[in-house]
């Protein structure tokens, strides 16, 4: 029943202008709902539009299509009863902890006495007792985010929005804050009816949420929904927990890699495939890690992410680049070195450059294209604008810049061609 939902998001579409009449589609046909007593997680890689969606829900931005309703009323600007916790805390550095917490209440025009009483109660609840007169800069990251929570909780919001609230914190502090929050929520001590949590940390989502919505990027869409049927507090080491984590990994990689494979097959010798920036060092590093025991060339993605201390955001692009260069196969939740990948692992630096260069020529159409043009020209050089213009026929300006930047960094490692940034010139010569 739609009437009982705290929040309904239906068919929401959001684009950003890209200059010259172009538009970048960030969110496309997004649907979600939040019921009372629920924590819903939005999980996806950076750039998948999750934070944009959160800003739409908070009324900080407007969608180009679709509708958002909060308690049955359309959202047309910052709504009272929707409070947000920010990734970088967003505390006002010139206000003390108490003043920061009071700010939201002052905006409500409450009597000073009540403001003070409620602020102190919230500070107490979140465990900030004794820090009332401190300035944010005097606090550690974890304490600062506690202020962020207290500031949001004090206005007694119906919906609490959290935008990667733990990602700017170190591992221990983040865990400490998560368990505190889950405990307060479980004991129904928070004056909040529902929570939306944006994250790119899979385990965090499984640990805290009742439902997880997976976001795919370009454009951002809800690709699937996973219900986490585990009682709180949850145990990270339980087999069921791990099963959920695995399931999400597979969902998140399968779709991307499938698309990449499809693109590779369809767009053979096409330069329109956007390249995601991954440095050759990251690729070498992951290959080296994969080649040695206990993996011996094949690993479970969650395992290797944990082992290498990589976030999903960091691991997936590298894995995809390896897939693109055919140095590894990504399938299901596994990553497996190809024959080339294994040779790369055993090779010395010069051989590695050679393998990399050959792989670029064979698998990255843009690299091969630039090399061919440079070979054909008598001067063996070409301005950047030549390729940029060509790419912009196929993609947005920013994506074109990114793709060129990536191909330059790869070509430099493979010594396929060189690039002079001052003159914005591609050439075959090595710099003197």
């Amino acid at each position, binding site marked *: 029943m739609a009437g009982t939902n705290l929040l309904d998001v239906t068919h929401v579409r959001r684009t950003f202008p890209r200059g010259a009449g172009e538009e970048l589609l960030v969110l496309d046909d997004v649907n979600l709902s939040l019921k009372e007593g629920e924590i819903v997680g939005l999980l996806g890689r950076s750039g998948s539009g999750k934070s944009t969606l959160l*800003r739409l829900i*908070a*009324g*900080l931005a407007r969608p180009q299509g679709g509708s958002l309703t909060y308690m049955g009323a359309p959202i047309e600007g*910052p709504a*009272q009863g*929707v*409070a*947000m916790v*920010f*990734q*970088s*805390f*967003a*505390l*006002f*550095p*010139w*206000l003390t902890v108490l*003043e920061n917490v009071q*700010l*939201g209440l*002052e*905006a*409500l025009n409450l009597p000073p006495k009540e403001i003070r009483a409620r602020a102190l109660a919230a500070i107490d609840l979140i465990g900030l007792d004794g820090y009332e007169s401190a*300035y944010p*800069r005097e606090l550690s990251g974890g304490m600062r985010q506690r202020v962020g929570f207290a*500031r949001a909780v004090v*206005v007694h919001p119906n919906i609490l929005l959290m935008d990667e609230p733990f990602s700017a914190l170190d591992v221990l502090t983040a865990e400490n804050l998560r368990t505190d929050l889950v405990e307060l929520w479980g004991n129904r001590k928070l004056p909040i009816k529902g929570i939306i949590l944006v994250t790119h940390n899979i385990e965090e989502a499984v640990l805290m949420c009742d439902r997880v919505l997976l976001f795919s990027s370009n454009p951002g869409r809800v690709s699937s929904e996973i219900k986490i049927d585990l009682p709180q507090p949850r145990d990270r080491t339980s087999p069921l927990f791990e099963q959920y984590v695995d399931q999400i990994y597979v969902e998140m990689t399968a779709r991307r890699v499938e698309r990449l494979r499809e693109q590779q097959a369809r767009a053979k010798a096409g330069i329109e495939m956007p390249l995601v920036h991954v440095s050759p060092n990251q690729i070498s590093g992951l290959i080296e890690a994969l080649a040695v025991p206990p993996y011996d060339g094949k690993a479970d993605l969650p395992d290797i992410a944990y082992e290498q201390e990589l976030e999903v955001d960091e691991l997936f692009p590298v894995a995809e680049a390896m897939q693109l260069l055919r140095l590894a196969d990504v399938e299901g939740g596994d990553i497996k070195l190809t024959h080339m990948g294994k040779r790369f692992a055993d090779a010395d630096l010069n051989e590695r450059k050679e393998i990399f260069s050959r792989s670029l020529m064979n698998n990255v159409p843009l690299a091969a294209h630039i090399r061919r043009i440079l070979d054909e020209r008598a001067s063996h050089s070409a301005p950047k604008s030549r390729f940029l213009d060509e790419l912009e026929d196929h993609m947005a300006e920013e994506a074109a810049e990114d793709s060129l930047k990536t191909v330059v960094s790869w070509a430099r490692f493979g010594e396929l061609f060189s690039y002079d940034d*001052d*003159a*914005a*010139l591609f050439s075959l010569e090595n710099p003197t």
Partner: protein
Amino acid sequence: MPILGFISVTVVWFLSLAPGRILGAELACVFAIFTSQAWNMAFSFYQSLRTVPPELEEAGRMFGLNAWARFWRIEAPFAMPPLVWNMMMSMAGGWFFVTLSEAISVGSTTIALPGIGSYIAVAIDERDLSAIFYAIGTMLVVILVYDQLLFRPLIAWADRFRIENQPSEEQPESWVLTMLRRSRLIDTLTAPFDAMIRWSYRLQPASFGLRAIAPESKGRLGDIVWYAVLAVLGSYGAWRVYNFAHANLTWSDLGEAMGLGVLTMIRVVVLIGLASLIWTPVGIYVGLRPALTRWVQPVAQFLAAFPANILFPLAVSLIVFWDLNPDIWLSPLMVLGTQWYILFNVIAGASTMPTELRDAADNFGVRGWLWWKKVALPCVFPYYVTGAITASGGSWNASIVAEVASWGRRTLHAHGLGAYIADATTKGDFRHVVLGIAVMSFYVVVLNRIFWRPLYWYAERKFRLT
């Protein structure tokens, strides 16, 4: 420091130095421009040298770079971006003095060097408004041209010396620089120079070993000698000043100058206050809108670079026309050129406000006066103070030109220290010029020490976003 006041003193000295009149005047003019620019830039360079990251310095030492090589490879590049920025600011001051010192009369000597400054002086004498407009137009074109040909390329070029490893959000670009970089001719022409510099590094042997660290006692002895010399020179100067003052000035002279100083100070304070009231909200409004900022910020910088004294005749002709009270209506001229510092500093401040802070304010429904009080004003406060300090210093300086102005045969007088110095200069009365400058310096220093400096530190401590 009211550099302007020094001109009149130095002019006479330079005139007596060179037998040919024009050469002496040219020297005086060059000296005035030099003082208005060089100290700023030297100070900026010195500041940068003090803040060279120790790891760069250590890396240089480990590779055995000698002092000469260290200077060109580490210290000079590091100091380049602030130096270029400072150069731009000093240029505006330079123009102010050029236009002023080209046509100056000290007592019976009247000097007119060929240049836009004398052109304006003649135009004022002849009450020729169209000539004034020509001068303004020319100035606009000149500033535009050197902005494109000199400063844009310099800024774009200096961008490579920024110490951060992250590429800047928006890389400054310049078509001139791009042209120069792509030109083979320039490459060929600069190659010998490059080679020479590189060769010069090898003149001294690489400095490995303990020599790199200077023995401390020697340094200390040098310091003592240096300070002793300074102390002797200082006390000699003070003694001369005392004698001079004792012989030529009375206490009532001092009282008069101090009283007039108060008048000028009231003008400066009131006008900076007014300018702040107008430009702070405007600056915040603009700074929070990136599209608008991109457009307004260069205009504000341009206006700050424009020598405001070229515009004075326009205002003065209006005051004469309507017969307004010079004590009030000449005052705005003091902030005509300096108010822009407030505007563009506030714009810069507002545009640094993180999106998340703005979102937080919106999310919690912070609006109206609460928003100005708790969010916007604190955010721009440190930037505002920086701008207001510059503006106030500049206004003191401008008072010497602004408090006395003429249009044809009419000369308008406001009561104030600036007028006091200007009048004394015209009469060639050095005792009062020196006294006026001393008193003005005193006011500027005291105002800085007891008001601006503490305010600046307070703003830095409390309001800076870190």
